[in-house]
């Protein structure tokens, strides 16, 4: 019941008859317990039962009612006690302060405590009322409806590819480079083999009488590249003949001309 009242906002205009309702006071209080969550909540309900502006309620009356309520509830529902009794104790203290002569009061003053309580009750009442008004609005899915079967919007992503001309051509170059079999071409050069040099040098030594320079054994008008080959081959041939004891070699200085003659028999 209390929830419906909150939802419709009726609680505000004072038409509400409080937790007491139509039934007997004690029974009604007991029946409504499930709707309440705590001390402020209950205080607010009690305050409303006075059917007065929250700003003008008598805190003293409120405290009396609350304490009376706690007395009756304790008998009915012991498990409620803990939370409610904290507030009850505080209110009892507040009540005694309000009854005491002002000069005997400690800080904070009873006025401050009462004011604080009143402010809190006001704020809770304001939020309750607002919640009711909020819930009573034209709500989507209850009072207003969005389209039942929207087609939906879709964004399809599409790739637009790019490639530069240079990248294309260069890629082909790289492919060709990578895939073309690597062939080592050895150019057909004119060479004098060691065998032919050996034959040539030994035959020329056979007819020579004196020392001959190595270069004299080379073909006179040969291609320069053949001459280099012939020089190398002839040198090795000369060394071979010397090793076999068929020739003698003389060199007067480093890198000087190399002379060769047939070994004296």
């Amino acid at each position, binding site marked *: 019941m209390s929830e419906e009242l*909150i939802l419709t906002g009726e609680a505000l205009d004072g038409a509400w008859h409080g937790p007491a309702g139509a039934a007997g006071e004690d029974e009604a209080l007991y029946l409504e317990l499930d709707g309440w969550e705590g001390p*402020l909540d209950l205080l607010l309900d009690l305050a409303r039962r006075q059917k007065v502006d929250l700003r003008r309620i008598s805190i003293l009356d409120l405290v009396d009612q609350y304490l009376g309520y706690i007395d009756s509830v304790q008998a009915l529902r012991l498990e409620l006690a803990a939370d409610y009794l904290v507030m009850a104790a505080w209110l009892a203290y507040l009540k005694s302060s309000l009854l005491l002569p002002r000069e005997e009061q400690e800080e904070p003053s009873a006025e401050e405590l009462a*004011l604080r309580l009143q402010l809190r009750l006001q704020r809770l009442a304001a939020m*309750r009322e*607002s919640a009711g008004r909020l*819930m009573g609005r034209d*709500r989507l899915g209850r009072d207003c*409806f*969005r389209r039942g079967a929207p087609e939906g919007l879709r964004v399809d992503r599409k790739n637009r590819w790019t490639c530069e001309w240079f990248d294309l051509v260069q890629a082909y170059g790289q492919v060709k480079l990578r895939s073309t079999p690597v062939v080592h071409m050895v150019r057909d050069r004119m060479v004098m083999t060691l065998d032919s040099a050996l034959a040539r040098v030994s035959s020329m030594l056979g007819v020579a009488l004196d020392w001959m320079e190595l270069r004299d054994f080379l073909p006179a008008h040969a291609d320069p590249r053949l001459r280099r080959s012939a020089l190398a081959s002839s040198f090795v041939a000369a060394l071979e003949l010397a090793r076999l004891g068929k020739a003698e070699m003389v060199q007067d200085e480093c890198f000087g001309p190399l002379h060769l003659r047939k070994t004296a028999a």
Partner: protein
Amino acid sequence: MSEAPDDLVRAVEATLFAAEAPMSAEAISAHLGGADVTGALQALALHYACRGVAVVERGGRWHFQTAPDLAHLLRREREDLRKLSRAATETLAIIAYHEPVSRAEIEAIRGVQTAKGTLDVLLEAGWVRVAGRREVPGRPVIFATTPDFLSHFGLATRKDLPGIDELRAAGLLDPVEDTLAALMSPVEKDDEIRSDALASGDESA
């Protein structure tokens, strides 16, 4: 037949109509290739104002919905709308009117501890979100409402929350401590102190 709307209005109309969720003007614009849709949205809102469906803006997002006055015709038999507990509705209202707000602040107003499930229900409904942490000791999480909250309750902005201006003017959205400090500072001796103080509190807020 009414006068034919221009192409942009038609395009915005079709886009909003087909959309499965509310769309911001920017999202509509982006969908339509960057056109300025502000005027078209206004034209649509005006055109549909008297019809059975309406174009509305909620929290910066636009959508079509049925006219509120036809609710009695459309209310569904099956109530699939989750019925909120009183604790949840109060908590939602406190968050909406005070946002951003921490759990401790919610509890200070309600005077009771907030059960874990209460906030969960609101988060799950998509009406409340965690809006960061308050930079005070303990760095408590703070809560705020979502655009879906505004859509659901038919609010264009939080300024449209029922009675929010009055509550603010009455100081009822200020912390108790602030109001108390303001009220207690004048050293009054009168018995009238309580009602006077509260009345002046109204004016000063």
